[in-house]
């Protein structure tokens, strides 16, 4: 039995009718065509489906679409400005933190949530912060380097005032 659902994704309101057992990742990918969110396991183990729910990173395969009603959902498609990559995305590009790219959207959104909480992390904190997102290609090293670079790039400019 389909249920009416109002989802706000990347600032845009969508009116849908979905079966209540469907997960958020399914609705994002199949109903809204937002295929940047990946599904790697469907069981909350890999983190590839990470999105932001009210700014906090969640595994969208573990969230029912109906649970996201009335919340602000941010997917990877909503992170960049039209004219420029988000500084986290730019750091991932510049530091070689992307190989196959399947984990990348989830990792980037996890990092967004993490750096919002901890804007100047240590390397060990970065590793802890992304430990819920699996990557099989990179060995994480260039991801960690990219996150540290992004943290620096996102710091408010200091000492250049009058």
């Amino acid at each position, binding site marked *: 039995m389909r249920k009416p659902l109002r989802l706000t994704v990347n600032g845009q309101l969508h009116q849908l009718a979905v079966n209540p057992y469907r997960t958020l990742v399914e609705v994002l990918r199949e109903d809204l065509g937002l295929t940047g969110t*990946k599904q790697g396991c469907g069981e909350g183990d890999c983190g590839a489906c990470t999105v932001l729910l009210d700014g906090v990173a969640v595994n969208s395969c573990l969230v029912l679409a109906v649970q996201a009603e009335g919340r602000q959902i941010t997917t*990877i498609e909503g992170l960049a400005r039209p004219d420029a*990559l988000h500084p986290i995305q730019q750091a991932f590009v510049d530091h070689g933190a992307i*190989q196959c790219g399947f984990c990348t959207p989830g990792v980037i959104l996890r990092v967004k949530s993490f750096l919002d909480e901890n804007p100047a992390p240590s390397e060990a904190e970065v590793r*802890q912060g992304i430990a819920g997102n699996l990557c*099989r290609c990179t*060995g*994480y*090293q*260039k991801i960690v380097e990219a996150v540290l670079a992004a943290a620096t790039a996102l710091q408010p400019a200091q000492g250049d005032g009058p």
Partner: protein
Amino acid sequence: MKTYSVLGTRAPRLDAPDKATGRALYTDDLRLPGTLHEALLHSPHAHARIKRIDAGRARAMPGVKAVLTAADVPGIRFGVSPARYDETVFARDKVLYLGDELAAVAAVDREIALEALERIDVEYEPLPIILDARQALSGTAPQIHELYPGNLSATVEQEFGDLASARSQAYRTRTGRLESEMQDAAFLEPQAALAAFDSQGYLTLTSSTQSVHYVQRTVAMVLGLPAHKVRVIKPYVGGGFGPKAACSTLELATCLLARATGRPVKITFSREEVFLHSRARHKFVHDMTLGADRDGRLLFLDHEAMLDGGAYASFGIATVYYAGSLLGGPYRLPAMRYKGIRAVTNKPACGAQRGHGGVIARALFERLLDELAEELGRDPLEIRLLNMMETGDVTCNDLNMSSLGMRQCLEAVRDGSGWASKRGKLPRGKGIGMACGFFVSGAGYPIYRSDTFHSTATIKVQEDGGGVLLHTASAEIGQGSDTAMAMIAAETLGIPLDCVRVKSGDTDLGVDLGAYSSRQTLMTGHAVREAAAGARDQILGAIAALLGVAPADLVIREGRIAAAREGISLDISAIRDRYTKEHRGWTDNPSSGPLTFREASRLAFLERGTIVGIGNYRPPPLGGKFKGAAVGTSPAYGCSAQVVELTVDLETGQVAIESVTDAHDCGKAINLTSVEGQMQGSVAMGLGEALLEQVKFDRMGKIQNPNLSDYKIPTAVDVPPIRTIVIESDEPNGPYGAKEVGEGAIMPTIPAILNALHDATGIRFGKLPVTAERIAAALRGVALRDDPSAESSSCIPKTGVTPPAPYPPKAG
């Protein structure tokens, strides 16, 4: 040293912005109008006779468009190596492992497809389940696969040099066993396929494959279609590491359903199905005896191995050969005997995975090398320096080290890790260990017997000038091959990287055997270089004619036409005028300075029409004449050395890898960042295989951990900082001197960890993965040496079974 403008830089990957923003499309992201959802029926039994299949109730469901079982599809056998075609699309008389595919459904949505599976009635007669390779080969076990009497999938017997004499001269020998467990590649993207026929009967299959070429041939063969009517496209692929190199029922059933329904059909594996399908790392048992003279020079290796292959051959015939042949180097070894055997069991088929066949063998060899060093009172690094091969050496099994930076790798990790100040000086519980390895830069022969070119490339110069289109059928699976190929094209053409647009992974674009055996950089790279040179020479020929100079007087450098040497003056005013007049009203016409590539390529088109450069590459005949000589041959070999430092919690057995220093000789590094990325990813995978990863079965043959929670791969906190040192030998057989990095880099990781664990605990571990429980038990003295060789005298049981008719296999 040659200087380059594009090669050797850290150019960001061409696909990185699309991957960072979610624009990059993978197979499951694609949709065609009217696409049906597919689901596969897997056997719930590991071994059973199929007495009856009745799909009537499923076919009658509203929304079900087709149900296919063995009775509805061609019974043509397929597989990887034609000599071992042993799979059918669906199980016909028996199921051979828990997961074997029996039927496929296409329905209007996923829920209906899954529900239809439950309405396919199958009656089974359970048969005895054989899960242990030793038991399978015992001579008393029931025959699992009808093609393999005695459950013998393949045997190898090879001897090089005079083993008996070498053995008699040995001053010291060390004997040991290493036993591993079946592992999973755990790529993040589950396999997926999307198939559709057009109204002219042409089939397009989009698949998460590592080789569009092999899939095209297999689909054509099984569906009975001419190959030119089968187009296979590989969009972005979320990692492969080997298991995605073989064509599978996933792909074939999708094509058959598309034919049966006349509609597009799509399927994506669940994570559990990824585990059930497997085709990943075999379970190996290796026995080796390694002998050396009084000075520590290696004299011989006597080696036996048993592989648990699972139900089908897949790449496993090549695996059992590689398990022996990849020990021929990187040390001088005058004599080597190898006996390998691969068993059929009621488990998912194993196949190729990063470091194909050689990883566990390398781990034991390097452990025994450390043991020999200890016996002789030598430093492990010193004994490696004493024995290592150098450029120009040929192994006893005829592998030619046309370049080999082994010494530079060893010295780099020695100096980079502070080896001398740490070795033998760390407190109990802390350890340092090292190991080396080498690997092919592409298999010397295709997996079917053929004189085919291994890679082709075309470069079309865009007619309006300024850019080129590079087309190959190679497989970008995350390793960065598209970017590397664009860099080779840009360097050869003398133009900036952003003037090259790449399309790849499509059988319409040429022939390429794909991303396996670490072959793209060398083989596709050769073809791309040749294509680019052809396009460049045509442009320069046209411009030289216009300028009244010889083609050899001109070069393209950083996107501009320049004189090849001093003393040549070029008057370009007339031809520039011709270009400018064509572009009246345009505001960005070049007006000063040398002729640009944009002008030159447009003018060349005006003179000659469309300009296309073509490149073809296949390796020269390689290797010896003995049976199996093809496996292990390659135009070039990469090599590496690693030092691992770790801490063992002496109470719990928990291991923390503190640091890894890794040097790899990849020849000329096309893209330094990508090379480092391959090295770091290899170390992480090796770390997981050494300490964490094991596919576990219950006694009914059901996988107990088919998920990424219970099958543990390393997370960011498990992997330490990795110091990567890129060694660039100049490989004469590689494009611009380049060779592999994608697989060889994993070779030293497991043994370096084993050797460091010994340094920390005094224990030589003989079973992988070396879990905390195993370490804790060994530390408590429950198993003092943790050496499984005590359990039986040889890893290969006596069978009394006649092996299958011999055939010379081709490499995989």
